[in-house]
């Protein structure tokens, strides 16, 4: 059963509170800190009553607990089955997790049961030993906060070597690709992992190079809710920061914010909805759509 209180925030907060109580280090301040860290906005009105008020009979009013050991719960079967399923995913080769205790567990699902039907077909090769080695080097550098020296293949197929401060690895579910987001030479660098030929952690020589914020843009469009366009459009763009206002019964105004680097991708995604979407701002975006329409009209068979 997935929806169960043992996975809940209250149990996590109570376990943290009991850990301090068992150690004899519990204070009122610490209790509230644990609640803030593990539970929800209004939990501070409930958990203290359950604990100090003895409703849950885990701590006496004087702060002494009959619990003898720091709280622990074993993994559930569902958690183990999920881990076993993960071990069958090709991407697990990038990691090296301990598998003890999972040998006799049935996977919750197998890769052949799940089809990413619209995923691009030229994703990264997770069986390539060089790719795996580079990935692990980067993960280690991220853990240690160290710079790396990266040799990568440029768009013009030449090799370039740079020293960068890695900040995070970004995975695209649509592209099935990892990208390294790094700071270097006052620039924000995005490097496809598949294009990295080699990398190594370098000597620590001071602070990490800062990561510039990505430049963002926004696009506003009117949406007409025909052919279930409202749901399709809003779900399609749901991963972006957005605001939607209803103008009339079936007309809406949607504003999306996106990374400026992704402008071409945004353009073709908007075009995919055809006349259901009319971009109103900015003018530069409208001009790009007009340009594509005009190009299309130049091909002779538009009837």
């Amino acid at each position, binding site marked *: 059963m997935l929806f169960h209180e043992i996975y809940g925030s209250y149990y996590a907060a109570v376990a943290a509170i009991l850990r301090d109580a068992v150690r004899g280090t519990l204070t009122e301040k610490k209790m509230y800190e644990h609640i803030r860290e593990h539970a929800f906005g209004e939990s501070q009105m409930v958990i203290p009553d359950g604990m100090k008020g003895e409703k849950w009979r885990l701590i006496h009013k004087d702060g002494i607990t009959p619990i003898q050991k720091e709280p622990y719960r074993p993994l559930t079967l569902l958690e183990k089955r999920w881990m076993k399923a993960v071990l069958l995913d090709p991407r697990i080769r990038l990691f090296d997790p301990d598998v003890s205790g999972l040998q006799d567990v049935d996977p919750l*699902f197998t890769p052949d049961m799940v089809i990413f039907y*619209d995923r691009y077909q030229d994703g990264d090769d997770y069986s390539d030993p060089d790719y795996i080695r580079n990935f692990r080097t980067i993960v280690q550098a991220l853990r240690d906060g160290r710079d790396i020296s990266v040799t990568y293949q440029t768009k013009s197929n030449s090799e370039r070597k740079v020293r960068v401060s890695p900040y995070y690895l970004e995975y695209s579910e649509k592209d099935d690709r990892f990208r390294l987001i790094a700071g270097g030479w006052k620039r924000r660098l995005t490097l496809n992992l598949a294009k990295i030929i080699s990398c190594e952690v370098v000597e620590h020589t001071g602070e990490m190079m800062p990561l510039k914020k990505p430049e963002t843009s926004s696009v506003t469009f009117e949406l007409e809710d025909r052919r279930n366009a409202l749901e399709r459009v809003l779900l399609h763009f749901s991963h972006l920061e957005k605001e939607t206002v209803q103008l009339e019964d079936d007309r809406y105004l949607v504003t999306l914010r996106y990374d400026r680097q992704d402008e071409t991708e945004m353009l073709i995604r908007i075009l995919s909805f055809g006349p259901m979407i009319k971009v109103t701002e900015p003018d530069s975006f409208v001009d790009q759509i007009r340009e594509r329409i005009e190009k*299309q009209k130049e091909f002779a068979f538009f009837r």
Partner: protein
Amino acid sequence: MAYSELIKKSEKIRMYLRSFYVYGFRHRDDFTQKSARSYDNERRRVDSWLGEYMSFGQDRNGRRVFLSVNSRDITVNPLYNAFRAKSFTDRDITLHFHIMDILRDSEGMNLNDILNELSGRLVEFDSPDIPDESTVRRKLKEYEELGLVRSEKTGREKLYSLSKDEPDLASWDAAAAFFSESGVLGVLGSFIMDRIPGRFRQFRFKHHYILNALDSEILSRILPAISEKRLITVDSGKSRWTALPLKLYVGTQTGRQYVLLYNPANQKFSLRRTDLMDTVKVGDRIDCPEGLDERLEEFCSHIWGVNINNASKLDHIEMTIYAGEDEPFIPQRLKREKRCGTVTQIDATHWLFSADVYYAIEMLPWLRTFTGRITDLRCSDESVTERFWNDFQELDRIYGGDGDAVS
């Protein structure tokens, strides 16, 4: 009943979370399915769980509440919090922490010994309220089913102990951080991450549809049913249907998930959205008809979209596009984005995509992404090309063109 930020069932809150996250333009009065008080309670819960992501807007119809998240900026799906909000009784939490503690170092304890130890602890409280034998036995049985506790019969005695043998979780920190967001049923990975101190936080996710998390409970029933070849009975709105689940179809561009089903009654395949399923009951195992796997493989090789219910006729479609000799990224796009069919170079600047698919009309959104480059489009179902060009004419009109014939 007094308000609580915890909930007994997760179904109801799915609708509100979905509405706040996907739509975000609705006002209090628009939530007509339930009473205004129900709306106030659900909004308050969502605010309590996800306060930092809640936004408010004002327009002529009043105040709007919405969840605004750029999923590229987050390391952990905030919607998983909904699965950490299960309500429980005072007795549940009392028994949980005491039983886990009592069995902690034990090689095996019988029910009486557990009860005695428990009573000895609880009697020290002002309102001892000692649980009876059947209550503790029921809790132990529940925990056995969850996998937390195991039991062993020694003679006439049943001995309980905590489950052992589990991997070193610290070695899972990066894997759990990654698969909790990019894997199916990632919420389970997030539960595991809750148990790993100093978790790895340096993954980000692009094109990440966090809303799929809300279907986790549904999927946790369907996926084992696929493995075990069991029928499922689904309540979905006012309809109820039974079928054999075969595959999970996940959209990386649509934000939707589907289950590919086989209906033994009419021997046809269909796809159903998981977010429209209210409840799933897993039923009996069935013997699959001979040749089903081969039929399924053939069927899947012609699926483009998801509107394939009871499909039987294949449409042949061909699209020719122009790509300059200095634009190798265009044919590259064709090759990587096509889900079936072939791509052939016709001459130095023209490329042909062709495929046989069920319901070619489902390809229209993808075809439109090549607007500005399409030099020919043909389909055995003429309504597909007709719709494409009618839509294009309309698009031309709304952007100020005449939408009229050019050729």
